[in-house]
């Protein structure tokens, strides 16, 4: 397939439509990234997505693309709301997995001597690990409020400030959620998981601003050199996983009912306007809200941990929060006409340009902040959305580093090594509940996030604003 690739520019390449593909695949990557991208099945998966009904323009693959299940991770696909489909596989099991970035009033030298204490305090305050449960246990009436009001439920119940809601995608509360359509299994899995980090690649990271690339935008976002920052990366936990599982079962039947040919059953889908499509969107919105609420509670506990370690008077401001596993109904200009589209971003981030009404008023002139976490040992980036992303990728960009090594490969590579000590030698204190998690998540298991960011910046989909370097991480 690499042989049929046609380069549109240094950073955009096209796999022409072939077989049952309705549109071509557009891959955003530097030339040096191409061999590793074509080493796994992700490009084939992007081609499979291109076969689905109602897909508009292209099936997009971002530079952090890697082999997922059904849709690739790092994919963007928009479907016409009248003629196209919605697919739970285009969002993934971890619905509204996302990232929140907070800026503190602390400077790097303030925290270095207390990093061990801070990391331990965060670790004890925030439940982590497989099947982690938290102290927030809700009855079904209260849970329904969480599912419809998201982060606002958390704020109204003492977890954080009203002003934080302005700095969350969808203001932390996605409309259209229907708690009635949620299964008992999902309620059971979600019941005691609010305010928990989970395992795998989820983390809370303390870092600092190492580099500023655009002083004006960084100032607008409230970032300055050496400022201590906090990143939260997690999602909708077992609740979202179950919502996806339930929806896939419905969509398998729906695909047959509507005569949709599937290159892979995990791509099962239904017309956006069908009962099944609408049911999925309302169940997904409930899981999106569960996740917004989850991160809001974790942010509150992180604030308490910082106050306990340093001073009750320190400030910890939410800079922004993005979702990177989501489907949204959005208006986009296609061929000169405004169209209603169902945009699937699976391992991809919304990156809206300056002046877009969905961006917080404070950032309206700068463009939407885009948060790109890297691996534990290297760095993360703050980017800004651009007009070009709006024109070319439905206002979307990459979401992170993207794996290059399978988990078993990483564990094999890590055998006999102490990843925790290696990271400590690089100035990063890590606490994880599982030793295997550390090996699976070692820096070499991921692409270099700087290469990923160079590609989306090179393609004009985002602007580079700041680089953050980790000092301490807690993981599941």
């Amino acid at each position, binding site marked *: 397939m690499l042989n049929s690739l046609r380069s549109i520019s240094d950073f955009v390449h096209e796999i022409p439509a072939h077989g049952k593909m309705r549109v071509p695949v557009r891959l955003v990557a530097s030339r040096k990234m191409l061999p590793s991208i074509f080493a796994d099945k992700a490009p084939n998966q992007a081609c499979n997505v291109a076969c689905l009904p109602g897909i508009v323009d292209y099936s997009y693959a971002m530079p952090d693309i890697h082999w997922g299940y059904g849709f690739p*991770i790092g994919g963007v696909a928009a479907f016409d709301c009248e003629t196209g489909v919605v697919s739970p596989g285009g969002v993934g099991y971890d619905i509204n997995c996302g990232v929140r970035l907070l800026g503190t009033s602390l400077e790097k030298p303030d925290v270095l001597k207390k990093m061990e204490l801070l990391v331990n305090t965060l670790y004890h305050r925030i439940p982590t690990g497989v099947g982690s449960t938290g102290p927030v246990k809700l009855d079904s009436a209260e849970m329904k409020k969480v599912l419809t009001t998201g982060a606002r439920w958390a704020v109204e119940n003492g977890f954080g400030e009203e002003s934080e809601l302005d700095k969350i995608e969808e203001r932390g509360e996605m409309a259209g959620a229907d708690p009635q359509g949620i299964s008992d299994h999902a309620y059971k899995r979600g019941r005691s998981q609010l305010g928990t980090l989970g395992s795998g690649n989820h983390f809370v990271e303390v870092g600092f601003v190492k580099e500023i690339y655009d002083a004006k935008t960084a100032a607008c976002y409230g970032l300055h050199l050496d400022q201590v920052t906090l990143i939260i990366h997690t999602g909708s936990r*077992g609740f979202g996983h179950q919502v996806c599982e339930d929806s896939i079962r419905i969509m398998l039947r729906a695909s047959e009912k509507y005569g949709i040919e599937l290159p892979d059953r995990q791509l099962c889908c239904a017309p956006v306007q069908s009962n099944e499509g609408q049911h999925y969107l309302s169940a997904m919105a409930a899981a999106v809200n569960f996740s917004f609420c989850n991160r809001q509670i974790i942010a509150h506990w992180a604030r308490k941990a910082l106050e306990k370690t340093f001073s009750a008077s320190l400030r910890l401001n939410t800079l922004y929060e993005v979702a990177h596993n989501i489907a949204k109904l959005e208006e986009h200009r296609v061929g000169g006409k405004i169209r209603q589209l169902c945009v699937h971003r699976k391992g991809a981030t919304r990156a809206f340009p300056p002046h877009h009404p969905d961006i917080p008023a404070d950032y309206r002139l700068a463009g939407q902040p885009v948060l790109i976490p890297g691996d534990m040992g290297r760095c993360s980036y703050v980017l800004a959305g651009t007009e070009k992303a709006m024109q070319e990728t439905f206002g979307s960009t990459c979401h992170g580093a993207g794996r290059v090594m399978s988990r078993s490969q990483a564990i094999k590579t890590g055998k006999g090594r102490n990843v925790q000590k290696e990271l400590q030698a690089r100035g990063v204190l890590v606490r994880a509940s599982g030793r295997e998690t550390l090996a699976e998540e070692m820096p070499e298991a991921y692409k270099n996030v700087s290469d990923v960011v160079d590609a989306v910046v090179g393609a004009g989909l985002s602007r580079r604003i700041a680089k953050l370097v980790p000092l301490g991480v807690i993981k599941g």
Partner: protein
Amino acid sequence: MISVTRVNHTADIGLQITASNLEELFKAAAVELFRLICTADDALMEKEEHTLSVEGNDLEELLVNWLSELNFLFQTEQILVAEIAALVINGTLLHAKFSADRFNPQRHTIHTDIKAVTYHELYVRPTQIGWEAQVIFDV
């Protein structure tokens, strides 16, 4: 004759299983699921008896539903399957009787959180000498 191989997948974990009959295939898949989730440090201390019935539209969906339901029991009630005493497949209906332990951090080491059992590249099919299946877990 049962063989279980882990499939290398960039983000997730897959299994390829072969067995001489369908019941053994489904049993082996369940045993390996729990090996992925955790290992017991000692001989299991407590055993509870459970029964479970699941159905699917076809054998592939049945395999996904069987493993998903077992994962659900672990996720919500910390139930870990120890031994499957009986497993009967009748068309696309499955009935199982198994003994189980409850997760206890003193006796079990957790490895992997299985978010879901996926349909990606899934198959359950007869071979010349028995049955084979492939299933990929989202982790």
